[in-house]
């Protein structure tokens, strides 16, 4: 194996091995210090490994294999930066947590799985990595062990396992069109348009991955799970873990083959999600929940872009969707860390924190001359000037409004004592570095992804395009702040509350089925069934030719 191959494999392998090493007490004791270094191989792999490299780790019939293309590398690099920053933050914030050992194990496993999904090449490894990142993330969101966290964890697990069941069904159908037991993803997807079960596979894939991305109405777990975790965990959950759904759609949808009806369905779901996330986010009272709903909204944007690519059969849009998603990784990660920073700041000293957080939020909305504006410009390419493109552009105004709401809530959350106006270096430094990277990095990636010169992004027409929605949003925010109607207080997870009303009904149904158990376990009943079974078997076999 070449150095590049080893580096690529090390990206998920190193954190996984570190998680195993945590079984030993000495390693577990220093585990918080390992969180940031564990993600470094991933960053190096994203930077140094040549594109379109293919690494076969285990030959057929296993075919455990890795592959790094441009979308994968962009997401891997963005995720690695956030993992390192959040890991550094966690090393400080968790220093006194008595249960940090267990937290670090979940962290490392989630990290390993999240890198895995971006770079594996075969279907079985993808499912393994996807299950790892999804299930290990439960440990992060359930860490605080409050009643709220337990409920969030239950909802998350139930929906995740449901999604896994849909995906395994899709993958099995996908793989049975291929001569190998464990085909490469691209080979299997190349066969997909010919599959007799094409429609069923596409539906299962979209629902399975859409659930991970939080497309409405499968978003209900996200505001719950992302708001109960410790701050650095929320940052990676909302920033990175949801991207497993994005890479899933990018890898498994036949983007190169125009599939208009499914593309349209995904776009519509995406646009509905983009606006729904904003609307519900505005009703929230906790900054983390606002951010979680903003993630729902942003994933709607990504889904719309992917849906647009599917309509046109434009596989080049994958890199652009990945670019937009990577921009969201960094910004959302930095915004979540800001919640922790603001909470630990004194009310009098919080203004600089709010300023930076506001800038990050406006970048998410596409404020000109920030990285986010480039992400917004990039997706204009594949979206074109149609209705979808217009609605997406307009959603940036909503995002601005939502971020204004976030900053206001952040201001009210400052509870630090005046003696320590700002949190320690260990928390501040990773946040500031991450924020700067989030605002600046898209400038280096934009020409690479879109093939356009950076200067084009600064052309007046483009500045106007991104500035208008932001200004509109700011004006709206100001107006609403001055004399807005009182917004309803919607519980996190919105429609989930309705679904939970069905809980007692379900319990009663289960109890009814349970009574069958008591009947079947009567000796007389079982004896009769045994006799009936003899007759049924005899009749069936007698009827055989």
């Amino acid at each position, binding site marked *: 194996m070449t150095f590049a191959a080893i580096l690529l494999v090390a990206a998920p392998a190193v954190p996984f091995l570190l998680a195993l090493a945590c079984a030993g007490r000495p390693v577990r004791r220093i585990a918080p210090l390992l969180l940031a270094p564990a993600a470094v191989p991933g960053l190096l792999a994203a930077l140094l490994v040549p594109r379109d490299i293919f690494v076969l780790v285990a030959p057929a019939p296993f075919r455990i294999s890795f592959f790094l293309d441009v979308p994968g590398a962009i997401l891997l690099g963005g995720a690695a930066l956030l993992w390192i920053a959040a890991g550094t933050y966690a090393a400080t914030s968790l220093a006194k947590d008595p249960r940090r050992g267990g937290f670090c194990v979940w962290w490392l496993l989630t990290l390993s799985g999240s890198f895995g999904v971006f770079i594996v090449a075969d279907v079985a490894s993808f499912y393994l990595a996807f299950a790892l990142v999804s299930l290990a993330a439960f440990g992060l969101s359930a860490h605080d*062990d409050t009643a709220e966290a337990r409920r969030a964890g*239950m909802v998350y697990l139930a929906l995740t396992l449901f999604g896994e069941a849909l995906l395994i069904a899709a993958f*099995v159908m996908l793989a049975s069109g291929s001569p190998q*037991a464990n085909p490469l993803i691209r080979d299997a997807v190349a066969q997909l348009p010919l599959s007799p079960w094409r429609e069923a596979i596409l539906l299962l894939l979209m629902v399975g991955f859409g659930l991970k991305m939080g497309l409405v109405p499968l978003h209900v777990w996200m505001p719950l799970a992302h708001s109960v975790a410790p701050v650095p965990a929320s940052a990676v959950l909302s920033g990175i873990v949801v991207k497993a759904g994005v890479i899933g759609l990018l890898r498994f949808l036949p983007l190169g083959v125009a599939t208009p009806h499914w593309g349209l369905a995904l776009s519509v779901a995406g646009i509905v999600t983009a606006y729904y996330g904003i609307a519900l986010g505005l009703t929230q009272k906790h900054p983390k929940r606002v951010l979680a709903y903003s993630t729902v909204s942003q994933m709607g944007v990504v889904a719309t872009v992917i849906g647009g690519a599917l309509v046109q059969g434009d596989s080049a849009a994958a890199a652009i969707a990945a670019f937009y998603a990577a921009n969201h990784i960094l910004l959302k990660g930095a915004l979540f860390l800001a919640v922790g920073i603001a909470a630990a700041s004194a009310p009098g000293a919080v203004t600089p924190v709010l300023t930076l957080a506001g800038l990050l939020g406006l970048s998410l909305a596409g404020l000109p001359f920030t990285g986010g504006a480039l992400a917004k410009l990039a997706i204009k390419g594949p979206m074109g000037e149609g209705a979808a493109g217009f609605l997406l552009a307009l959603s940036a105004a909503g995002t601005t409004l939502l971020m204004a709401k976030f900053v206001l809530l952040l201001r009210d959350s400052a509870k630090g004592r005046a003696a320590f106006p700002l949190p320690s270096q260990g928390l501040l430094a990773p946040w500031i570095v991450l924020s700067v990277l989030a605002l600046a990095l898209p400038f280096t990636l934009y020409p690479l992804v879109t093939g356009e010169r950076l200067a084009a992004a600064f052309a007046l027409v483009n500045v106007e395009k991104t500035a208008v929605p932001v200004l509109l949003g700011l004006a709206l925010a100001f107006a609403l702040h001055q004399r807005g109607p009182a917004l309803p207080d919607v519980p996190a997870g919105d429609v989930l509350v309705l679904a939970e009303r069905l809980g007692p009904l379900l319990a009663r149904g289960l109890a009814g089925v349970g009574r069958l*158990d008591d009947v079947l376990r009567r000796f007389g*009943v079982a004896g009769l069934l045994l006799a009936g079974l003899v007759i049924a078997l*005899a009749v069936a076999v007698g009827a*055989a030719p």
Partner: protein
Amino acid sequence: MSLIASVHASPLGLLLVLAVIVPLCGLAPLLLLKSRVAERAALVFLAAGLAIVCVLCFEVARSGAPLAYFLGGFKPPLGVGLRADGFSAFMLGVTAVVIVSAGLFAMTAPGADAPRMPLAFWMLLLGVWSALNLVYVADDLFALYVALELLTFAAVPLVCLDGRAKTLSAALQYLLFALFGSVLYLLGAALLYGTYGTLDIILLAQRAHGEPALLAALALMTAGMLAKAALFPLYLWLPAAHAGAPAAASAILSAVVIKAPIFLVVRFWYDIATPAQTAAVAPILAALGAGAVVLCGVFALRQARLKLLIAYSTAAQIGYLFLMFPLAAASAGAGAWGAIAWTGGALHLVSHALSKAAMFMAAGVIAETVGHDRIAQLSGIGRIVPISVFAFGLGGLSLMGLPPSGGFVAKVMLLTSAVQQGAWWIAIVILVGGLLAAGYVLRVLLPALQRPVAEVVPVPVARWREMVALALALGAVALGFVPLQPAAFLAIGRPASWEGAAP
């Protein structure tokens, strides 16, 4: 007859006899020993038995042909033939692993003051093993009857080792239902002997051609085996029996004992019946299997006791093995043994054996540590016995069919087969079964990881017993790295014939 005349026993065929006899040989000396010494003596026989099975499996794999032995040198129909093909060797291997692990789990650790297993446990353990091995190698319906009876009479007392009224009544129920099964089996065997004049399975297959007696016999014998296997809706005896036994015994009962009658159902329908007959019956077996997976899964969700939950899970999980029948039967004839469904079913069998044994052992450790197994009061148990909870979780991973685990690979194989044959209802049952398993496993696991509600003073449990459970659970996880393709080993010597037994 000329076919039989040309057959010779394999040179290493004596291994088949040894696999049955060696555990039995342990019974007599154990009787004379005190329980402390008997443990160590039993260990010697367990080791010897394991070595024999290892050599046997290795030999089958090496030669690619079944091992055969004729008792007293007389060939069927006069004598009794023993035969181990790939499937038999596989079952022998799984059984050996579980039995030896249960033996190690039940051992009193040096220096620990855990309750010592009574002498009877060790004798019954060896008896069960011998009976199981005979089921897997005998080719004669009467020898199989003897094996089944020995199995029942060794397994039933395992249920009521503690002699409490509750376990006694569970054991009695088990005994009665197993006897029903035996009666049906005996009726069928008698019908076959009266009609065809032989009890040898392979000769029967050659002589039988769909006569009414054959059909009636197959129906009777299959129903008898389903009663012994506790397939839905005949599972009434299983929960109380498997939950009442001591942990080591529960592990054996749930992991391997109920697999023996299932093995025989496979032999009836793939070695005696014609493919058309098998295809006609397969939907009924699969429907019962689906009922088991779904309904027993729901019942498991409602249990208040950990061991009962695991027992219901066993009743649910054996359903998967019956879902295999229509899938394997569709690739009729010799092809069935090369079908992916066949390997999937076998893999499910071994994954379930390992994970279920691990879970029962872990549940036993938990119950010993905190003094009860009420699920509602097991919150925070993960802090008290982390290794056992981890073993339980890994076993549960396999039951849920999540990667990496043998249960996952088995599920994928069965799903693949179901999809390829358009058997959508089977695919849906498999997926729903996985979700139900997740429900009942997480019902235990999630509270276990939470903060303890009340302080308990844990009773210390020997670390190595937890390690045995963990090793089994890790074995179930390691099976997740089995390649996703039909296993050649399972097809060795299939379809069964004495022809293939010649050296």
